[in-house]
């Protein structure tokens, strides 16, 4: 039994159950929140170390041999995602200590957060397609409840769209799983990957793959299925927004990566071409949508959509360099995007608004916060030497190498427009004077409560440091992404690792 593969799921599940048992004591729940996410991060590091050493880690549940049991598989991509889940989980748990309203904490904020993390980690680690569905639902149900916690009017409106579209996507996912099972008679992803190549009806496989693409595309917020995201992500309290922004759509992206490198590579000219154009349009529409927004979190939400395009681009080109770029982009994006949401939460706490017109004067009053915003913001736009520059550089270079010049041009233009949005926030929130209609400097003069300051700033500083490290000390991260891409490009490695000797 390789404990490190199941620990990232067991820790948050146990913590969620314990938090429920400690319903009456918010203090203990808070302590447990930080403790369990810290443990999750430690488990993620452990998992990363042994995955890098051994290549693949496979755990068969109940010790049944591979195609019959549910397997949990950790390859380098899974390990990277789990490690990022740990980092984001810990950052959010600390930030929540200060930012979460007491009412939310009393009504199950912490148990839900743990369950969400369990669902996310489970989706990253499972090697069984139906089990993936179950983890998706665990994650979704927790996210529904987190999204509506507090019950404000805007939250309800956003949640209805979010819930409806996600349920539809689940129904589609389920029927695609059913079709696939009807054809190959197995649910184990490695076994499916091995058997789809010997089917006599390749057309049907393409149909199924497109059903998966639409279903995961909705969850990843890809064009044209992204409308639920900007409608809902700015409505819950900020720690929840940041958690969603970092992890939820990336689960959809991960699922696309897994499925379209392992199982559906028969008709690359067709499926991956659709992905390519979806990626380009996702980038464009996301960034153009952001240009029209004047609310801090709405701008950031639209930028999630546009950044998803870059990740899909890495997958769509399906060359080793493109996959390196895609994986690198995911790593960079999760950290940066969460951090930007956390900064928006601090500005909200100080001045009581997310509207750009009601904010201002932060550079004069809080120069350190301004710098902490600049690091992820410039990184998102791709300014060297921050992490986003290298991520964009690799993806654009990969598209040039595949002679997709138009796509490369779109990617570059989108980078420029991202910079425009970030400058807009910078100019409005940080650079300009405190607006006249805001009386006595908003809350800027009084500032945060001293006991909250650490919990607000520590995660932001920590994540900004991660961004700087990825940018300035990128070689180890790059080689990690390279290992992940190598495994994704050679699905036979995955199949052999899961099915062992009997594969042949």
């Amino acid at each position, binding site marked *: 039994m390789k404990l490190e593969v199941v620990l990232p799921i067991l820790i948050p599940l146990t913590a969620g159950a314990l938090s429920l048992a400690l319903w009456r004591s918010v203090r203990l729940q808070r302590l447990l929140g930080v403790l369990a996410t810290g443990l999750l991060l430690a488990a993620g590091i452990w998992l990363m170390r042994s995955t890098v050493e051994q290549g693949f880690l496979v755990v068969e549940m109940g010790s049944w041999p591979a195609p019959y049991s549910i397997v949990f598989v950790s390859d380098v991509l899974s390990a990277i995602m789990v490690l990022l889940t740990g980092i984001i989980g810990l950052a959010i748990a600390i930030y929540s200590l200060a930012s979460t309203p007491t009412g939310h904490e009393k009504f199950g904020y912490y148990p839900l957060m743990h369950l969400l993390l369990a669902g996310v980690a489970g989706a990253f680690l499972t090697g069984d397609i*139906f089990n993936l569905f*179950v983890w998706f*639902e665990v994650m*979704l*149900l927790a996210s*529904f*409840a987190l999204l*509506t916690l507090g*019950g404000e*009017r805007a939250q*309800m*409106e956003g*949640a*209805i*769209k979010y*819930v*409806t579209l996600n*349920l*539809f996507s*689940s*129904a589609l996912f*389920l*029927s695609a*799983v*059913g*079709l696939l*099972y*009807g054809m190959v008679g197995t*649910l184990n992803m490695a076994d499916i990957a091995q058997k789809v190549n010997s089917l006599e009806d390749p057309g049907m496989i393409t149909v199924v793959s497109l059903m998966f693409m639409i279903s995961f595309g909705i969850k990843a917020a890809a064009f044209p299925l992204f409308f639920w995201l900007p409608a809902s992500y700015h409505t819950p309290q900020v720690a929840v927004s940041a958690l969603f922004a970092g992890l939820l759509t990336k689960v959809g992206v991960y699922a696309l990566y897994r499925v379209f490198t392992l199982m559906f590579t028969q008709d690359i000219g067709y499926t991956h071409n659709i992905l390519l154009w979806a990626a380009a349009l996702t980038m464009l529409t996301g960034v153009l949508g952001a240009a029209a927004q004047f609310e801090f979190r709405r701008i950031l939400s639209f930028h999630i959509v546009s950044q998803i395009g870059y990740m899909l681009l890495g997958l769509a080109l399906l060359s080793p360099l493109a996959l390196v770029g895609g994986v690198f982009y995911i790593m960079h994006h999760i950290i940066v995007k969460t951090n930007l949401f956390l900064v928006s939460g601090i500005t909200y706490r100080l001045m009581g608004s997310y509207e750009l017109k009601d904010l201002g004067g932060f550079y004069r009053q809080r120069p350190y916060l301004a710098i902490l915003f600049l690091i992820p913001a410039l990184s998102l736009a791709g300014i060297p030497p921050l992490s986003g520059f290298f991520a964009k550089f690799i993806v654009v270079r990969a598209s040039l190498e595949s002679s997709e010049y138009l796509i490369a041009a779109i990617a570059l233009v989108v980078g420029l427009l991202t910079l425009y949005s970030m400058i807009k926030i910078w100019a409005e929130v940080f650079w300009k004077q405190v607006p006249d209609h805001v009386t006595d400097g908003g809350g800027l003069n009084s500032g945060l409560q001293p006991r909250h300051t650490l919990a607000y700033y520590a995660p932001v500083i920590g994540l900004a440091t991660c961004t700087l490290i990825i940018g300035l000390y990128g070689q180890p991260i790059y080689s990690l992404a390279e290992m992940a891409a190598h495994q994704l490009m050679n699905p036979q490695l995955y199949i052999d690792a899961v099915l062992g000797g009997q594969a042949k």
Partner: protein
Amino acid sequence: MELVFALAIGTLTSTGIYLMLRARTFPVVLGLTLLSYGVNLFLFSTGRLVRDGQPIIGGADIYSDPLPQALVLTAIVIGFAMTAFLVTLALRSHADTGVDHVDGAEQSSTTKESSGREEADQ
């Protein structure tokens, strides 16, 4: 049996999707429920339709595949929880906003227009 089964799935799915395209929460909830019924039935059929078969190999000559049955059971349980949540959400949203439009609000002109259309429907 296959024909009846296929027709049932088709009817459930198409009615479900038709209802989901309405702009009111209640039809959308019903639509999602019907769609999930359709998907569940479809999932059940992926193990092939067998009459009088045991879900055990070796017990008799005819056997049915137990795996889709397990999948359907899981999907039903999950679908039940999701529907319950969605109904609560729709009720709460209606109580808060006073309208049951999925966009949470609608312009007065479209209100008249759509309510007029609904009266015409009835």
